[in-house]
């Protein structure tokens, strides 16, 4: 068991860890590293990119942090349960949950097939719900919890070709608000981060149309999203809940 996170006001070390889903690359990796820098032992969840997850763990350990790579497809209830159990055995219960795992399967609504609709909803929204449900019990008992849902500027804002992604991300924001009010009085906060165009593997194939609409005239960096997650996970953010923090260079303003 490990002491974790910045210290609560009474000085007692908090026993628990952070779980970041989809942390083998991109925003997930950056968030995992940022939380580790704040003292959280981190569960680096991945579906198939074992090398990426190992690299995330290595980066954390190089900074004197603690991390454990945990393979688990977030769309499988069984794998999710096993992920939580592995982490609990190693570091204590997950008191910070970052629902970051996500994927795109773009097409116009007119021609999108059921499979592409379902898998985007399953991975980006349903998995986040299941992970949240699984994590809340321990957070409530600990009188401390931080659920951070990585949504998107897409959802609140339109982006042609991404009706499935938009639905999932907008749904994530709705879920964030309702779950937040359910558990607020137990010291558990639930917030969303809505990144705009961020430089990652997931955006390299996008054309310049979206970028030209960004007031800041540049894509964001993963570290800029991670800094927001780090704040929301902190003791200082205890009165922030049910909110969505846009990290988008002004795109949705």
């Amino acid at each position, binding site marked *: 068991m490990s002491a974790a996170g910045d210290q609560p006001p009474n000085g007692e070390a908090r026993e628990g860890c952070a779980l970041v889903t989809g942390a083998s690359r991109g925003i997930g990796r950056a968030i995992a590293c940022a939380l580790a820098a704040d003292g959280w032992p981190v569960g680096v969840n991945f579906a198939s990119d074992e090398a990426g997850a190992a690299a995330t763990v290595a980066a954390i350990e190089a900074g004197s942090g603690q991390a454990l790579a945990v393979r688990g497809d977030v769309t499988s209830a069984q794998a999710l349960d096993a992920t939580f159990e592995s982490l609990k055995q190693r570091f204590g219960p997950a008191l910070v949950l970052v629902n970051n795992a996500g994927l795109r399967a773009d097409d116009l609504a007119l021609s999108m097939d059921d499979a592409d609709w379902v898998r985007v909803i399953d991975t980006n929204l349903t998995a986040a719900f299941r992970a949240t449900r699984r994590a809340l*019990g321990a957070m*409530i*008992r600990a009188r401390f919890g931080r659920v951070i849902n990585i949504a998107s500027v897409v959802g609140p804002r339109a982006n042609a070709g991404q009706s499935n992604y938009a639905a999932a991300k907008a749904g994530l924001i709705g879920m964030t608000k309702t779950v937040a009010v*359910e*558990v607020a*009085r*137990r010291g558990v906060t639930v917030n969303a981060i809505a990144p705009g165009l961020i430089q990652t593997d997931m955006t390299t194939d996008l054309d310049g149309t979206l970028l030209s609409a960004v007031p800041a005239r540049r894509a964001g960096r993963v570290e800029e999203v991670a800094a927001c997650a780090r704040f929301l996970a902190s003791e200082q953010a205890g009165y922030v809940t049910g909110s969505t923090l846009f990290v988008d260079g002004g795109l949705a303003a």
Partner: protein
Amino acid sequence: MSTAVTEADVEQVVVDSLESFGADRAQITRDATLEELDIDSLDLAELSQIVEERFEIQLKGADVAEVKTVGDAITLIAGRA
């Protein structure tokens, strides 16, 4: 009920839990309703967690929906332990 867990044990856990949720210990009697004690669904969800940890039993939503008084809660849990 397993021989190791008595109804008194269950009552103790239930009363301590309800008090930790903000109920006034003096008001926690077997006949007191959860509503009178200001115990809501979040509190009951946590009580289910506590009961699972302590007595290794699982309470489903349908079971808990029938619980109106402190006595109902004790009877339900003691019957499963």
